[in-house]
């Protein structure tokens, strides 16, 4: 026998079938396009932004995100449920397309039937199993959502409708198959190639041929109708994520990662700064809100949300989306809530995990810019005082600017103004310059440089705060003022390489300052030390110790530097006990996003939560690479009752303790021009 089937079996291939079918299909596609065009109008409220450059690269991102479900399946649960459902659905889509191609084109036009023989058998089995896979995955997803919902998961009637429609399409598909097989295929060698269809056929056999034919015809039309409804609902429900979430991977920010757009401060015509209304956002910001599937992975990882603060990145995106659709005139900071906006630590945990490639942080900073630049508002008087202190003295601590290099004088490290013949410019940052605890880190770093024969220089009183906390708080004006002063100071000297011991300084100098004219290479101290160690210039006498390591947000997620700090710890003799949340999943210390300047007034303390995670490892030492983290942890161990149990330190301090003080210590190198 020939292994194939008649495509319009039972419903017939007359115009009585084809015409209504084609009309329905055309109407569905028409309504789909019309609906998507209506959505386009919503996105078009936004400002222009180019996100179609480097299109080959973008296309690759898009295909990887879509076909491999790369972002969705991370984490595997429940990501793979969606992944398998998607892959099953893709197979069904391909199968249906093949049927359309044969039944409506190749067969009537060229008499060509390709769904036959072995190919048909494989086709039949694949689609059968794909349908089953979809049904099972949908079932598990349904049980998860309605019977064992994770904390906070919100279900709307729309979710119910979407589940019902998908189930109905899949089940009706099997009923059609079963009814057809019960009449035509039972007992033939072809039947086992559709195992689910075979089972359905056996279940339906009691109806007799008349009943089966009627059932088949009715269900065929019903199935078609469901598909039409599905297509028309895509733009009108969260089914639109089929298009928006996948294409958002195409429109992704290609980096540098997390770099904010520099506002034009010289434009005297500008009447507003930051985002307070939908039409002040870019089209991509609005498109983001449509790409969100409310999966709440961001919310589950947000340190502010986890400690009871009124911020959920998911809610922010939802609220912006609602405003874009129905209330475009709304004042966005009021819609989202000032407390929510101020609570963000810009830790990037939300963006890193988002399967929809949504850019949360820039939106929050955009609204903060509006509050600070247009209203002069801050989360508290202490933040305003820190801003004013920075305006006057170039540091948020309010210390006299002239004493910025005092810590280094005793070490013989000179400002470039006195001696510009150095290997590296050490951009010290405010905390390592003025805060006693962090000065110890700066000293350790200088000792390590010396031991490796590197001659560091500093800017001393010419250095200002890099401006990062101010910028993240929304004070773009102060940030650009500070950046301009720093860049001018750096450019006064033949600086080729800058090393930072603060990842906030690093991120700012290495990415943000590029817009404003900084050219020199910038390296974080952990990378620099790892480099010295690898080249043999830095020699350590390893001594055993056990510790856990905290990935700072700005070295980790913002710059993907995870392994070099760990290599340093191991080289020092350290045994690392990782916290459950490490690397890209690390939990913020609470000080990012300018929060270092602000009091933590609502909820519990983020730093305490992180310290408890560190204490749970049983390691007595908590190593990090960031002065903000160190400050939060040193203060936090007291409040979290962990003093004496957990000792927060910077990696550089541990390394400096293990310097090999032998006769073969590399001599001070004063000749090399900087770069190794």
């Amino acid at each position: 026998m020939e292994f194939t089937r008649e495509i319009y079996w039972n419903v017939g291939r007359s115009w009585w079938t084809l015409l209504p079918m084609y009309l329905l299909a055309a109407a569905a596609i028409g309504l789909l396009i019309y609906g998507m065009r209506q959505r386009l109008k919503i996105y078009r409220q936004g400002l222009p932004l180019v996100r179609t450059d480097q299109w080959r690269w973008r296309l690759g991102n898009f295909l990887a995100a879509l076909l491999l479900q790369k972002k969705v399946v991370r984490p595997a649960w429940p990501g793979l449920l969606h992944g398998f459902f998607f892959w099953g659905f893709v197979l069904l889509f391909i199968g249906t397309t093949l049927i359309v191609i044969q039944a409506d084109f190749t067969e009537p036009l060229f008499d060509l039937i390709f769904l036959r023989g072995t190919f048909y058998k494989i086709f039949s089995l694949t689609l059968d199993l794909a349908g089953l896979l979809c049904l099972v995955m949908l079932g598990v997803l349904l049980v998860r959502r309605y019977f064992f919902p994770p904390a906070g998961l919100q279900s709307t009637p729309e979710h119910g409708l979407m589940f019902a429609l998908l189930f109905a399409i899949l089940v009706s598909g099997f009923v059609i198959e079963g009814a057809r097989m019960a009449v035509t295929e039972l007992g033939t060698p072809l039947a086992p190639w559709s195992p689910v269809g075979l089972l359905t056929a056996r279940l339906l056999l009691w109806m007799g041929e008349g009943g089966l034919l009627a059932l088949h015809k009715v269900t065929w039309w019903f199935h078609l109708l469901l598909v039409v409804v599905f297509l028309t609902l895509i733009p009108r429900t969260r089914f639109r994520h089929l298009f928006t979430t996948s294409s958002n991977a195409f429109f992704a920010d290609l980096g540098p990662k997390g770099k904010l757009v520099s506002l034009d401060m010289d434009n005297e015509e500008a009447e507003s700064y930051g985002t307070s209304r939908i039409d002040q956002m870019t089209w991509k910001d609005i498109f983001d809100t449509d790409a969100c599937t409310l999966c709440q992975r961001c919310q589950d990882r947000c340190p502010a949300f986890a400690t009871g603060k009124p911020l959920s990145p998911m809610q922010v995106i939802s609220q912006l989306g609602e405003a874009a659709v129905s209330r475009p005139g709304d004042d966005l900071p009021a819609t989202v809530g000032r407390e929510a906006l101020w609570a963000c630590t810009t830790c990037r945990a939300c963006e890193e995990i988002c399967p929809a490639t949504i850019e949360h942080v820039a939106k929050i900073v955009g609204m903060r810019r509006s509050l600070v630049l247009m209203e002069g508002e801050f989360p508290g008087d202490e933040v305003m005082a820190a801003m004013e202190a920075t305006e006057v003295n170039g540091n948020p601590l309010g210390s006299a600017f002239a004493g910025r290099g005092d810590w280094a004088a005793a070490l013989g490290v000179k400002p470039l103004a006195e001696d510009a013949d150095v290997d590296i410019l050490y951009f010290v940052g405010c905390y390592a310059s003025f805060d006693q605890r962090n000065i110890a880190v700066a000293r350790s770093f200088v000792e390590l440089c010396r031991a490796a024969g590197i001659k560091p220089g500093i800017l001393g009183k010419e250095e200002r705060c890099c401006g990062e906390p101010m910028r993240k708080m929304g004070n773009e004006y102060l940030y650009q003022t500070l950046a301009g002063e720093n860049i001018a100071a750096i450019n006064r000297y033949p600086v080729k390489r800058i090393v930072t011991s603060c990842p906030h300084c690093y991120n700012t100098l290495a990415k943000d300052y590029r817009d404003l004219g900084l050219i020199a290479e910038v390296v974080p101290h952990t990378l620099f030390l790892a480099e010295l160690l690898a080249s043999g210039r830095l020699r350590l006498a390893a001594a055993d110790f056990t510790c856990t390591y905290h990935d700072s947000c700005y070295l980790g997620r913002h710059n993907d530097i995870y392994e070099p700090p760990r290599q340093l710890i191991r080289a020092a003799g350290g045994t690392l006990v990782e916290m459950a949340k490490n690397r890209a999943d690390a939990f913020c210390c609470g000080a990012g996003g300018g929060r270092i300047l602000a009091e933590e007034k609502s909820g519990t303390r983020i730093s305490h939560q992180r310290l408890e995670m560190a204490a749970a490892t049983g390691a007595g030492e908590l190593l990090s690479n960031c002065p903000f983290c160190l400050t939060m942890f040193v203060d936090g161990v007291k409040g979290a009752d962990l003093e004496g149990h957990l000792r927060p330190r910077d990696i550089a301090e541990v390394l400096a303790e293990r310097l090999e003080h032998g006769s073969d210590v590399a001599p001070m190198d004063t000749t090399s021009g900087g770069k190794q």
Partner: protein
Amino acid sequence: MKILVCIKQVPDMEAKFKIDGAGTWYARTDLAWRMNEYDEYAVEQAIQLKEQEQEADITVLCIGGEQVKETIKKALAMGCDRAVHVAMEAVSSLEPLQIAGIIAEFARDQGFALIFTGMQSQDRGSGQVGLLVAEFLTLPAVSTVVEFAYEAGMATVRRELEGGTRACVKVATPAVITCQLGLNSPRYPTLPNIMKAKKKELRTIPAGELLKVAPRQETAKLFFPEKRGGGEVLEGEIGELADRVIQILKEKTTVLS
């Protein structure tokens, strides 16, 4: 309604001060400069009054060298309408009476309904200028004001007195008000206002044109106070220590009386 606000640029108090070469004032090297804290309250109060009395016009006045323009711009960015820069590099050589004389000379016949000043400057701290301006112009003056309300030519203010008591004073304008900590929270300038400030009127008058008062004082010498003995470290049993602390507190302070 015309309002005058008098401000002074002072060094940030966190700086390490050094005595200058002449030994009569602090050296200007390595200092960061800012608006005198009490003058910020004066600027803020003037702006709040303008927000209440829509047609008001605020002039801000500052005496000093070229660099005080930065501080003037901050006042303009906060919301003052126009500025007068009385140019004089060696402003620290003037005594409060002369400063007040300059201001009064400028303000005379200009019809200012209210003149706000800080109650004192953070660096010299004489606390005289505002009151002497009033004296020169024969205006009423209320000092150390911590609450201010204005209605139809009458200002109702509260003054801070010793020991936390307050006095409520009503004064008919024109009048001089000197502002104390607690009066208000000075605003942070918005960026559009910073931009607008760049285009506002900033008139420079050489101090010589307004300085008509001869000095009556002379600063003989500026010096740091001699270092007295440091703290005392008590050692011993806790109970005994507590008794000794109580004894010291009774002898040397009034906190237990």
